[in-house]
């Protein structure tokens, strides 16, 4: 794994959606590694390197779905942004909901941005490309302690 590889954590319970996202990122230009967590509790464990996730890598970007089992995406978001070590990681809420209340609540909980998953494949691919070109290309991400330098 090259040190230039961007680590992305995708918190998404729908396997189909996860795979689509994976395929979309594969078509991208930036080298990236996508890890998928299917529920919020696991995702937080992964982020905190608890249990089986002791050797997990801190992601550079978190893509978060709001509709998750056990712990809702909002709860996960709240916890991430409350955690000193995790709150600097940009969280992109990527969900099917276009409800204005959801959007407002996400931003008030300090989500970095909110994207509604388009139903159309082409559009979806373009959205992933946009995420890539914005968050992974244009934007300057904070350096994380665990990043191996060199």
């Amino acid at each position: 794994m090259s040190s230039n590889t961007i680590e992305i954590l995708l918190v998404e319970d729908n396997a189909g959606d996860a795979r689509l996202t994976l395929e979309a990122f594969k078509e991208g230009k930036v080298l990236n590694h996508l890890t998928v967590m299917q529920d919020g509790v696991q995702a937080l464990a992964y982020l905190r390197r608890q249990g089986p996730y002791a050797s997990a890598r801190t992601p550079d970007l978190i893509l978060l779905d709001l509709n998750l089992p056990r712990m809702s995406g909002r709860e996960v978001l709240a916890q991430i942004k409350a955690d000193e070590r995790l709150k600097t990681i940009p969280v992109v809420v990527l969900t099917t909901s276009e409800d204005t209340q959801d959007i407002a609540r996400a931003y008030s909980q300090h989500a970095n941005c909110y994207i509604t998953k388009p139903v159309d494949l082409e559009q979806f691919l373009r959205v992933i490309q946009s995420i890539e070109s914005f968050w992974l290309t244009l934007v300057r991400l904070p350096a994380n302690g665990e990043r191996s330098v060199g």
Partner: protein
Amino acid sequence: MTTNPPLVGSYDDVLVALSVVIAIMSAYAALDLARRVTFARGWSRILWLTGGAIAMGFGIWSMHYMGMLAFRLPVPVQYDWPTVMLSLIAAIVASAVALVVVSRPKMGLQRALLGSVLMGGGIAAMHYTGMEAMRMPAMCSYSIGLVALSVILAVVISLVALWLTFRFRKVAAAWSWRKSISALVMGLAIPIMHYTGMAAVTFTPSTMMHDDLSHAISVSSLGVTAIGLATFVILGAVLLSNLRFESLPTARQLIARYFLSLGLISVLAILGMLLVEHQGGETRVEARTINIAGRQRMLSQAIAKDAVLMGRSSDVAERIRVAADLQALDALWEKSHAALQHGDTELGLSGINSPAIRELFTAVQPDFTAMAEAARALVERSATRSASTDPAAAVDVILTRERTFLRGMEAIVFQYDREASFPDRTGSRLQMALLLSVLGVLLVQGILVLRPALANIHQGISQLELAKQALQHKSEELARSNAELEQFAYVASHDLQEPLRMVASYTQLLARRYQGKLDRDADEFIGFAVDGATRMQTLIRDLLSYSRVMTQGRSLQPVDTRRAFDAARENLHKAIEESGVNLSVGALPVIHADATQMTQLFQNLLGNALKYRNEQAPRIHVDAKPDEKSWLFSVQDNGIGIEPQYFERIFQMFQRLHTREKYSGTGIGLAICRRIVERHGGRIWVESEAGRGSTFLFAIPRA
């Protein structure tokens, strides 16, 4: 003493009027009975025929007798009851003939003529038999011409009556104007015939009673009342039985019964008043009789006095004076004597005396005759002025006879007095009976009308209550079910999105990755799958937006429809530019609406107008016109138009008139428009001519 000038009768107006009323009632009853007999079969037909003939015959006979009793002669009139009964039978037979004739399926001219001859003959027979029943000190002589006229009238009236009855026998309505008018005509015609018959008769008084008096009865006011009562009851029963209350709605039934009871009470009251009136009349006659009988005593004494004076006086002048006085007294005395026995209209005496009185008069007659002769002799002698003739004998006769006469007259006066008190009891009994009947009718009315009416009202109210509750319940249920359906539709289409997205996305991914890499069939299959999935997505999306009209509808606020239109135009600006459409808009008002939905509405309609254009340069005009209750908006285009048979269909969900290749869209647009308009309480429709363009109109109620 026989006089030749005919007796002049007079008519009691009240009884005449009553007889006409009876005639009209009989006529109406006849019409009813005709209907009953026509429709009855078998035994009930015979029953109706018999009963009807009796009732109708009784009515006609009663009319005749009321007319007879209304006719007052200066002599006492009595009736031979067997003959009276015979006339009643004649009337019943005539009625039976009439009913049989009119109840036949057909009535040709022959049968009608035959029937009217029989019926008219029967009525004439009844009339003249009735006349024959009269027992009085007078003779009847008939004018042949008038008799013939009355018989002809009877036949003609029968013909008319038969025709009218036959014509209206099938009229089922209990009351109908036609029947009422026919009854009126017939009811007036019968008295005409009767009074013509009466005019045919002349009564010449005679002292010889050459008829058998053994069955003669006098008809007092009691008799009149009894006949009247019986008639009303019988005819009333016929009419009552006919009022088919069951066919009327309950409210009308009760009203009919109520008015019937009122009518009955009025009739009874009128009869009672008639009775009292006649009683009074009789009492007056009795009083007058007693008065005049008493006066006879005074007169006889005055005559005696004058006789003595004449006998004593030698002065001629005085004699002449006294003679004149005596003459006057005697004239009055003799007249009163005759009047008491035979009746006199001037003195107001009926002349109807009981056997006891008659006997007393017979006893006193020799005294009377002797006195009268003597008095007249005295008067005559004074006129001849001969002093030679001796009046002493005459005076003696007068004096001696006068004593016995006085005693006899005394007895008569006391007898009159004794007899006068009798009728009172029966009269008052009848009055009591009438009063009780009235009370009875009121009571029955209370039971048959008031109680059911109140029960009806109560029932009506409680039914109303129940209906209201049921309605409320139903509307609550409906609202609940609606809400559930809305919810269901929303959730269903919402939850369908996700798996649909999977299918659509992965088939598209397949297409992307493997297009051209597999065989041509695979390409085609994938193409169809993708196409299907995409279309399903669109359909679900449309369904979602359709259901959102209600679930995401906002409350109605004042909305500037011009702004909504502008927003829609903005959303479609690309299509507008591309089409180069000439879009014009009139003054659009501020109305109570949901702004978003108004924009949606305009957008759909504008979009359609743009989509369904023809080769011409497209022109669209949007306008609004106020109505008394609403605003009428119109979106008019010059596109391809719509055929009339589709005017309704296009507003239904997913209904399209063209293939997908020609025009895009799922066909939900207008259904959404209709939903939005209906949510605002309005109505949407289209006016169009195929090939010339369409105008979509929707009316939104103001405030």
